[in-house]
């Protein structure tokens, strides 16, 4: 009843191929964007925006990146954290290179800096994607671990990446676009939101294009895909490139917008795992799922940290940490058993229900 496409006629191919062909979807997306742009900055406190919303959006962007690689192209990667690190540190190098040359301050526009960082990450991603042409499945997962540890080591050991900062920590330049400085958490949030919304739209369009169909064909069976004419080399490497681009931009945002100062350890193996969880819990092969997964993984620890004291259950901090581990593990298993295809799948089922409700026959 609420989600019925009956009566929505399409009279041209253009309409038929629109990204959101159904009116309800268009209204829904518009409502969500309106809410995110207007309601959240006004309603939520600065603390909540800075500590929850901004990291959630950035991690969702990284999850979209990994989802393109793992969910759409079927290549498991445990190196997401490292790719984010590449993005963060190359953004830093781009932002400071004019200072190195003797200039007064960062002259490269901020948006260009972040996008260039994404491009550098894409190149690194392609380099580490080359083994995927020979290695498959779990073997590849371990090969991406090589990227994770190698890049982390490189960033710690080679001083050039941090401009020889003795502590190995980089400090992001102020966020200025056309003379406007993004200072408050709400402004930074809006900056992130714009980036993430634009890139999510890009991802959504990519995966339903020729390129995206190639990725899915490779995922479902690479030999068959090769036989029907998708070139494994281009298809796999383009998946690595696009995925790394997203992760790199996410890393740059993480360093510049969210944290401000970053060390390579912020992008360790645990970050990679967390993002993999987001993808799998949210739903592999779903852009929406990346957001749901990111929300779940970001909010759950906060929830678990705050509930025991709220209900008057006073336990030690390390006890909470252990319980958090246990509950986290149980929830992962629970969701896998209930819905192996992720939370996004629940929404698909929900849509079916809404379509026929209240007369499901």
């Amino acid at each position, binding site marked *: 009843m609420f989600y019925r496409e009956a009566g929505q006629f399409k009279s041209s191919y253009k309409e038929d191929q629109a990204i959101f062909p159904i009116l309800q979807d268009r209204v829904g997306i518009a409502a969500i964007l309106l809410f995110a742009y207007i309601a959240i900055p006004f309603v939520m406190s600065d603390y909540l925006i800075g500590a929850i919303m901004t990291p959630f959006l950035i991690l969702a962007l990284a999850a979209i990146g990994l989802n393109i690689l793992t969910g759409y192209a079927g290549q498991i990667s445990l190196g997401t954290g490292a790719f984010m690190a590449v993005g963060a540190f190359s953004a830093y190098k781009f932002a400071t290179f004019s200072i190195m040359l003797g200039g007064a301050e960062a002259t490269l526009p901020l948006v260009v800096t972040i996008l260039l960082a994404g491009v550098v990450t894409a190149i690194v991603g392609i380099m580490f994607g080359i083994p995927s042409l020979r290695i498959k499945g779990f073997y590849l997962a371990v090969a991406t671990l*090589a990227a994770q540890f190698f890049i982390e080591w490189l960033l710690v050991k080679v001083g050039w990446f941090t401009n020889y900062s003795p502590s190995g920590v980089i400090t992001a330049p102020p966020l200025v676009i056309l003379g406007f400085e993004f200072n408050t958490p709400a402004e930074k949030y809006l900056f992130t939101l714009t980036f993430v919304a634009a890139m999510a739209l890009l991802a959504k369009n990519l995966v339903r294009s020729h390129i995206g169909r190639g990725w899915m064909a490779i995922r479902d069976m690479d030999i068959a895909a090769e036989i029907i004419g998708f070139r494994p080399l281009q298809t796999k490497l383009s998946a690595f490139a696009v995925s790394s681009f997203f992760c790199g931009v996410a890393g740059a945002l993480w360093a510049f917008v969210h944290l401000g100062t970053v060390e390579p350890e912020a992008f360790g193996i645990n970050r990679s795992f967390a993002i993999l969880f987001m993808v799998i819990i949210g739903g592999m092969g779903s852009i929406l799922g990346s957001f749901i997964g990111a929300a779940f993984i970001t909010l759950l620890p906060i929830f678990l940290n705050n509930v025991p004291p709220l209900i008057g259950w006073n336990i030690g901090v*390390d006890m909470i940490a252990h*319980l958090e581990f246990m509950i986290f*593990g149980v929830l992962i298993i629970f969701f896998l058993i209930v819905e192996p295809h992720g939370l996004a799948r629940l929404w698909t089922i929900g849509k079916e229900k809404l379509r026929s409700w209240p007369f499901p026959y």
Partner: protein
Amino acid sequence: MEDMMYELLFFLEVLFSGLLTGTLYSLVALGFVLIFKASGVFNFAQGAMMLFAALSLVGFQEMLGVHWTIAFVLTVALMVVVAWCIEKFVLGKLVNQEGIILFMATIGITFFLDGFGQTIWGSDIKTLDIGLPTGSIDLGGIFVDRLELVAGLTAAALVVSLAIFFNKTKIGRALRAVADDHQAAMSVGISLRTIWIIVWSVAGVVGLVAGIMWGSKLGVQFSLTLLALKALPVLMLGGFTSIPGAIIGGLIIGAGEKLAEIYIGPFVGGAIENWFAYMLAMAFLLVRPQGLFGEKIIERV
């Protein structure tokens, strides 16, 4: 001449120490292989099982004040219970799911076991002392760590007994049947559930042995689970389905990373042990994608 002799001895010492550390990696990798062979599950929880087993062993020793052999028996019983629970509550519900889903489930198990073990046994670094020898002995000019030697011998004994178990006993044959084909095994009357419980129990015991060795070396602490990650390149090198592969892979990785740290490390800033194993395994896979002893990957359309 004197110098060269010294250099050679030093090289041998490094090599030997690397090989023995490698057997410790092999012990962890062995648990992975057992489960992968029998159920096709890529068991990420092996490291967590190792930590949990070692924590329990120390816990039983401290709590009950018993001799370590009794604690050992108790821990083995506990690991069987854990295996039963995993089969009952996790794997049994996920039959016929894709590999990646099962892999994720084992990550869930990892989190749970890490949290559970530390909840009941505490999270302090514990010393594990079951009377394993310490210090080093002099083997013709080469100094060898005694504990590592014991670990190497234990690994060898474990592999031999597992080989006998797999090849000579009825259960072992059933395990291999399940590994080849789940459905065919079930159709000749092998219970998949029982086999899975047995395999996870055996992997738990292997984890316990690995935990004892690592625990004696480094103390029982959370960072042991990170060591389990090092078992992954070992597996890649040896092949996911081969027990000898796990051992030989471990030896190559152990020796390779020690030699690289000593002879290449100083030129590039050191600490290359962290990633060398992965790079070595990756380079190797480019030549042989199924690993050293893995079954040849046959692709059908």
